[in-house]
């Protein structure tokens, strides 16, 4: 099923429509951070903690697609193989297939499937990137950001970007020098945030994923964030918000696909291409001309 989604197989869309009403129960955790920060190893240790509580866990691990060959090596799972035969753990690797923001579009759909399958916690691991990875905020209920000591001074923590969105900050490899300094900077950054709407104060935790130090506390923190959201009705609000985003991104994708399909084969498009080749027309004017010519937009213009 997830395979159909990745391949944009039309049957996937129909199947998703059937599954969607059964989703909406899982707690979705997003884990992001720079390459080599230890995201996969940390998730491996987190699975272990959640399994101790008999929670069914699914992981979607996204790795980059090569922009050159279109291929990918999906190696996140390598760190989690000890859970491979646990029937209550489902791990799926996905290639980003050229989507920006570190998450493939299929990730959301895959999360719907796993949610409908009854996995209670879904962990989404983004490609190792960092500052620009906003997509995860439109997918997950709780965002964990994995940091490692020695990667920059305090100013890195106050720059804009993904750090603004974190609910839980993890200082991994905290046995390395400067871990405390990083913790300090992160706490300072959190204190400087405007009082957030949700009133959940982001937490900072030290972990050593390799030996599991601090991971129990991390699992507890995610669970208490979930509890907090449930108690305040925030989780419903969040789910509605994400649903709204999902609808709009689908709307955008479907419209674009249909329109492009229609335009690409049109006579106008062929003419425009020819004119661009012969230098009669520049690409900017040509694109503008074509869009303006479309009847949908013309009727819109009249109304306004």
């Amino acid at each position, binding site marked *: 099923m*997830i*395979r159909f989604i*990745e*391949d*944009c*197989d*039309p049957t996937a*869309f129909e199947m998703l429509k059937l599954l969607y009403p059964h989703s909406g129960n899982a707690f979705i955790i997003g884990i992001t951070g720079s390459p080599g920060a230890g995201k996969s190893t940390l998730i491996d240790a987190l699975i272990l903690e959640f399994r101790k509580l008999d929670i069914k866990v699914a992981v979607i691990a996204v790795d980059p*697609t*090569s922009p*050159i*060959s*279109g*291929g*990918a*090596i*999906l*190696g996140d*799972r*390598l760190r989690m*193989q000890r859970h*491979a*035969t646990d029937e209550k753990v*489902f*791990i*799926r*690797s996905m*290639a980003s*297939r050229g989507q920006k923001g570190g998450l493939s579009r299929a990730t959301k759909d895959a999360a719907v499937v796993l949610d409908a399958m009854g996995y209670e916690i879904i962990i989404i691991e983004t490609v190792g990137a960092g500052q620009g990875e906003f997509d995860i905020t439109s997918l997950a209920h709780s965002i964990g950001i994995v940091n490692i000591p020695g990667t920059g001074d305090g100013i890195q923590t106050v720059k804009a970007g993904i750090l603004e969105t974190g609910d839980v900050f993890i200082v991994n490899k905290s046995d390395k020098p400067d871990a405390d300094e990083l913790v300090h900077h992160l706490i300072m950054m959190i204190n400087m945030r405007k009082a957030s709407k949700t009133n959940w104060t982001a937490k900072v935790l030290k972990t050593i994923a390799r030996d599991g130090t601090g991971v129990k506390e991390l699992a507890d923190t995610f669970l208490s964030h979930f509890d907090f959201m449930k108690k305040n009705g925030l989780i419903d609000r969040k789910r509605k918000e994400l649903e709204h985003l999902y609808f709009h991104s689908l709307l955008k994708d479907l419209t674009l*696909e249909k329109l492009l399909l229609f335009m690409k084969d049109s006579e106008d498009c062929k003419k425009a291409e020819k004119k661009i080749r012969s230098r009669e027309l520049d690409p900017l004017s040509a694109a503008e001309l074509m869009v303006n010519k479309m009847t949908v937009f013309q009727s819109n213009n009249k109304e306004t």
Partner: protein
Amino acid sequence: METTNKIRVLIAKPGLDGHDKGAKIVALALRDAGMEVIYSGLHQTLDQIIQTATEESVDVIGLSIMSGAHLPISEKLIDMMREKGLADIRLVVGGVIPHQDIPKLKEMGVAEMFPGGTSFEDIITSINNLFE
């Protein structure tokens, strides 16, 4: 919608031998050929391989075996694949494979054999051919 079908390959090393350089290099070559490679690492049990192949919905399982146990491992895995309804996944085996064993593997149902010395080009072409 435009479909974007890519060949997904699971590369796994069953058993006890610890030589994974070959498996990694092959993984890289397949990536460069535009495939999606799930690299599951060393010391995989057959149960792990089966479960991983299911969760990852792969088209191909590639085993790298240097221990000499390619015959019993392949036989067992193929049995398990049939049992679990994974019979449409193709199994390919590389590593230290003596030439006299190739017909035996073929008979078992191994789709392709890549003994040491097979070129990347041959590996890629053979895998692509499985899906044409």
